[in-house]
């Protein structure tokens, strides 16, 4: 370590360090770390607790797909653990930071585990013999108990035990040491002391997440009662590996509760004694918990006490409707006064006001779950002080500007995830990629300076085709996801009897890092030359297991995966016998294929280091600038005659009230003047060919000018448009019934004479959105936009009467709740419901244009009022031209027409097709702040590829057996990638030579679809990994026994 702390004389580039410190090992820190290493930076990941995983690891399922949370997170945790360029420091804290942007000096304190991380095998013998049992299990939200030597949870990374120094008998009373005697690895070390480590990094990412401090709630929420728990505690109860092994039980008597009440906004959105902001995720996770509860026990009754329903994301609103319509969950639009316990039964009595009729009621429930506020981590103040950054009034970290939420106030220190403000998981993941991009923009001159190549320590095993197959099979219980519906032990017994199967094992979670170790051990111990895992879907987990096999010296194409969860246990929940039979068959078929598997080789391809961004709105501009700044040529295509997209139609922007034109100008100027950027205005994409790293694109500009470009990646930032409400509220005929965008355009004119004759304006929200049919989704941005316009109008003309008619106000995220409360003084807020829409009629009244009639729930009758101008807040929709683009790019659209990302939780800005990324409103309606953050993320995902010089191709390709080929060329005719050409080959026979035509596959272009193999009349083409023989063997194996 260098002693001189400042080298201020040197230019900053000389001083840059190609390493990054990431503080916090939740999903935000994990994603940022993984992206950073792919971009070419070394990462130090520091986590306060003994394992990475964070809050997401504690969740049972995730909304709105009910994916098993740990199942999708565990592969990423394992990836962190194996990555040679990530130095993982768990149970450690940053204690000192000095230096400057590009070169920080960091001091880290490693707390003693009293277990040697390098020696511990995670076997657990120590914990089984440890006599102390009363330590509360922190991972289970203190619901369960654990030993004083423990691993936080079975899938913990690193998979290493530690001793709780507060509980350990030896450390406190000097007697015991049972663990030391029992540990065969001799990993126990009571002599360990806190250790200080010093590192140097170029940038710092803070991702320390959130806490849930229910104990600080006011008494009326009843948290002191045994059967009142927080939602995070309930997640642990629902989880198969939780304190009750997935049985829904209440704490007082460990009996199954019949009536379960969920209370939203318990302590949040409270300006007097609670937390003033909205935590953003509770409406959705409560709906999820209720659905899962009903899945656990269909006879239970779930009641949700809600205030506003804030379901603003992709498929969110529909999810809450499904909870009600399909699962029978009952929602009360209500306010809670207090929750009290019946001391005899330990039931809870909820006193509430029904906001639909204004009546006060009581409801008796056996279990109450509180959606308590999610607050900044209790360390946030301390961390802010150490890092020299600011916190805001809520104690979240303060962002640099409203539109740059990923940067802190100190240069070189970036913010990511919930510690900056409330976010859901996909937003966090997108921000993590965005923050990695920010770091890369800062440190790109020193990219790849500190990286180590991944070294596989075990050399690849040579497989001779004549060797007898020797197959290992691992069958996963996936908690209860498979184990509850398929008789796994019975399947194991059956598979054991199959020929060539040398070893069959089952386990709770095959995806955990300790399972990866046991796969490697099995391959070594039994000298296996094939391996099969029967668990979830290969679409998410095949890569993980293939990598594990590679590490054990087994070519990854000798691995086969069987889907017995998504396509078996989850779809046959009430057919255990048939489901078990199916699982046996599926595995047997895979064994049949496995016998015929061959090792395959992968080759390397060069990458074109240029990018194409489609769409020149704020998202496209941000992504373009980010990529160009890092030295890559970037092509920006915009179909209109000017850059800026929807911002060209706005007056002032939310939340800063800057003029949209003034906000946009510096962006556009920077893009226009950057030497790495080519702009194509009035242009459309007319053809896209190729694949990741090598796309050939044709751009056609008005006037038929054609440009051919070659790019490595494509970012889709095509935005969305406002729905024109042709048939609603007489919009077409009435010139004083307009949309929000039309209002913005009026406001843009600066001259406000048009307001002179207007005395009253009514805003109607949710026009044609959140319907039962048609547009079923919430468009996310209309509420804040309407309130912004109300505040603007009130300022322009203070005596204007403003009325806002709404259904639920989407005021989640930091600061928005206060913005809403503050706006209330400027307008009259009236609520309506979908079954009683407001009615607008023309008046003869000279004073006003329209009469509005609205059913008022509290008054139980109609109210009438008058207005001159009606503003309709219609949803943002996907434009028609998405269809064309989606076909050209081979990427899917979702049911609402927006582009469909690769995975709604953990790959929110990728497409399933490699090399194509997504950001902005083309993904889902979002505001400027969110669009910019997401564009940063998309740029980050793209930089990973652009920055690499070459990439591996797949081994899944076609191969021509030359001797069988008759040179007919039918295969070349059907190949969609022009990967096959006919070449002339000289064949020498005994006394003469012939020139013959033969097909030849270019494996760099071949995508392995296999259609050529079917077309070949002479079976001369082998489709690797999906060969004729292999598939035939699977069919044969099905009914063999």
């Amino acid at each position: 370590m260098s002693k001189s702390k400042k080298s201020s004389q040197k230019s900053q580039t000389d001083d840059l360090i190609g390493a990054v410190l990431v503080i916090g090992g939740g999903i935000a820190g994990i994603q940022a770390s993984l992206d950073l290493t792919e971009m070419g930076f070394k990462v130090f990941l520091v986590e306060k607790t003994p394992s990475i995983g964070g809050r997401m690891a504690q969740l049972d399922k995730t909304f709105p797909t009910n994916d098993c949370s740990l199942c999708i997170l565990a592969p990423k945790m394992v990836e962190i653990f194996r990555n040679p360029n990530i130095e993982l420091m768990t149970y450690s804290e940053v204690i000192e930071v000095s230096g400057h942007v590009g070169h920080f000096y960091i001091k880290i304190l490693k707390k003693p585990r009293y277990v040697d991380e390098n020696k511990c095998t995670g076997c657990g013998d120590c914990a089984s013999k440890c006599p102390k049992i009363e330590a509360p299990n922190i991972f289970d939200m203190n619901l369960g108990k654990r030993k004083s030597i423990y691993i936080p949870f079975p899938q913990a990374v690193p998979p290493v035990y530690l001793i709780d120094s507060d509980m350990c008998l030896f450390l406190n009373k000097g007697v015991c040491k049972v663990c030391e005697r029992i540990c065969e690895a001799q990993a126990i070390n009571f002599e360990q002391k806190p250790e200080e480590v010093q590192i140097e990094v170029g940038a710092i990412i803070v991702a320390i997440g959130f806490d849930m401090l229910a104990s600080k709630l006011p008494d009326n929420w009843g948290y002191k009662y045994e059967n009142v728990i927080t939602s995070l505690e309930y997640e642990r109860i629902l989880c198969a590996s939780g304190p009750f092994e997935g049985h829904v039980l209440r704490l007082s008597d460990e009996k199954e509760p019949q009536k379960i009440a969920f209370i939203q906004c318990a302590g949040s959105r409270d300006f007097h004694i609670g937390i003033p902001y909205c935590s953003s995720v509770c409406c959705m996770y409560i709906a999820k918990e209720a659905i899962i509860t009903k899945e656990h026990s269909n006879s239970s009754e779930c009641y949700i006490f809600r205030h506003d329903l804030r379901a603003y994301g992709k498929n969110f609103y529909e999810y809450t409707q499904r909870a009600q319509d399909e699962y029978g969950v009952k929602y009360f639009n209500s306010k809670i006064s207090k929750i009290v316990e019946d001391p005899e039964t330990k039931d809870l009595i909820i006193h509430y006001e029904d906001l639909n009729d204004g009546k006060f009621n009581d409801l008796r429930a056996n279990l109450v779950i509180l959606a308590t506020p999610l607050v900044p981590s209790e360390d946030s103040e301390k961390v802010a002080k150490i890092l020299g950054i600011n916190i805001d009034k809520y104690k979240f970290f303060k962002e640099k500007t409203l539109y740059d939420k990923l940067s802190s106030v100190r240069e070189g220190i970036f913010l990511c995830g919930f510690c900056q403000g409330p976010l859901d998981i996909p937003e966090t993941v997108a921000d993590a990629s965005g923050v990695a991009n920010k770091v890369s923009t800062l440190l790109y001159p020193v990219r790849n300076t500190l990286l180590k190549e991944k070294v596989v320590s075990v050399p690849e095993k040579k497989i001779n085709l004549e060797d007898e197959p020797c197959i290992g099979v691992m069958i996963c219980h996936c908690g209860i996801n498979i184990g509850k519906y398929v008789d796994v032990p019975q399947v194991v017994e059956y598979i054991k009897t199959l020929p060539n199967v040398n070893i069959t094992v089952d386990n709770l979670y095959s995806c955990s890092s300790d399972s990866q170790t046991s796969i490697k051990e099995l391959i070594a111990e039994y000298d296996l030359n094939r391996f099969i895992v029967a668990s979830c879907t290969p679409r998410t987990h095949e890569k993980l297991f293939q990598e594990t096999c590679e590490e054990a010296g087994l070519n990854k194409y000798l691995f086969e995966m069987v889907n017995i969860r998504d396509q078996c246990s989850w779809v046959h929940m009430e057919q255990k016998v048939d489901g078990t039979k199916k699982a046996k068959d599926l595995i047997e078929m895979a064994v049949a294929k496995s016998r015929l598997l061959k090792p395959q080789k992968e080759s390397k391809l060069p990458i074109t280091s240029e990018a194409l961004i489609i769409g020149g709105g704020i998202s496209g501009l941000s992504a373009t600038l980010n990529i160009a700044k890092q030295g890559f040529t970037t092509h920006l295509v915009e179909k209109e005659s000017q850059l800026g997209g929807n911002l060209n139609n706005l007056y002032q922007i939310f939340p800063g009230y800057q003029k949209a034109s003034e906000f946009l100008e510096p962006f556009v100027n920077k893009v226009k003047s950057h030497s790495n950027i080519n702009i194509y205005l009035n242009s459309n994409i007319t053809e896209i060919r190729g694949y990741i790293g090598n796309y050939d694109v044709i751009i056609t500009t008005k006037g038929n000018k054609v440009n051919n470009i070659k790019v490595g990646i494509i970012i889709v930032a095509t935005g969305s448009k406002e729905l024109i409400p042709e048939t609603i509220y007489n919009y077409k005929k009435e010139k004083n019934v307009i949309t929000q965008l039309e209002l913005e355009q009026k406001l843009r004119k600066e001259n406000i004479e048009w307001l002179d004759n207007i005395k009253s304006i009514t805003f109607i929200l949710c026009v044609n959105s959140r319907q039962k049919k048609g547009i079923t989704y919430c468009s996310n941005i209309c509420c804040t936009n309407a309130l912004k316009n109300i505040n603007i109008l009130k300022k322009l003309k203070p005596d204007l009467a403003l009325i806002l008619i709404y259904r639920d106000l989407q005021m989640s995220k930091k600061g928005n709740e206060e913005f809403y409360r503050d706006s209330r003084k400027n307008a009259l807020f009236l609520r309506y419901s979908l079954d009683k829409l407001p009615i607008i009629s023309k008046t003869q009244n000279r004073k006003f244009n329209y009469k509005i009639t609205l059913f008022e729930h509290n008054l139980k009758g109609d109210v009438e009022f008058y207005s001159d101008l009606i503003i309709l807040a219609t949803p943002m929709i996907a434009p028609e031209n998405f269809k064309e683009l989606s076909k050209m790019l081979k990427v899917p659209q979702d049911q609402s027409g927006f582009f469909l990302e690769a995975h709604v939780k953990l790959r929110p800005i990728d497409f399933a097709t490699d090399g194509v990324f997504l950001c902005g409103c083309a993904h889902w309606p979002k505001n400027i702040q969110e669009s910019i953050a997401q564009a940063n993320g998309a740029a980050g995902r793209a930089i990973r590829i652009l920055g690499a010089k070459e990439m591996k191709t797949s081994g899944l390709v076609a191969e021509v057996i030359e001797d069988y080929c008759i040179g007919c060329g039918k295969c070349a005719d059907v190949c969609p990638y022009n990967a096959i050409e006919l070449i002339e080959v000289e064949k020498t026979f005994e006394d003469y030579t012939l020139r013959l035509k033969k097909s030849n596959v270019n494996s760099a272009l071949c995508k392995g679809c296999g259609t050529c193999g079917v077309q070949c009349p002479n079976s001369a083409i082998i489709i690797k990994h999906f060969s004729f023989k292999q598939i035939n063997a699977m069919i044969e194996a099905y009914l063999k026994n």
Partner: protein
Amino acid sequence: MKIVEKSSKKQDIEFKPNIVCFCCNWCSYAGADLAGVSRFQYPASIRIIRVMCSGRVEPAFILKSFKDNIDGVLVTGCHIGDCHYISGNEFTKDRFEQLTKILKFLGLEDRFRLEWISASEGKKFAELITTFTNQIKKLGPLNNI
């Protein structure tokens, strides 16, 4: 090869059809996964064989299945125009139109179906399996003599 149908006369043992379903990796396999994620229930009568593209499915696989006593065969892929491999499923469509003629000749056309399922059509996948299973149940088991 001679294939004769035998209707299930015995009512006491419920006939549970054995069906092979070919799924392409990108759309229909993902649709089948979505059926699982959404917990849409369907009969445990199918065994899915994953291929990269429906264009990989050789008509011979279908004949082989019937030869091996499998009661029904489904081939599923991306919707026309959505193929991950641009045009693979168009060849699938042509090939199986031809095969259907042969299957008609063998009296097996009701035991085979080609369907397009997208990655977002979990419900459609579950419904397809349910209706096709019922269809095969009505036809009874296939016996190879």
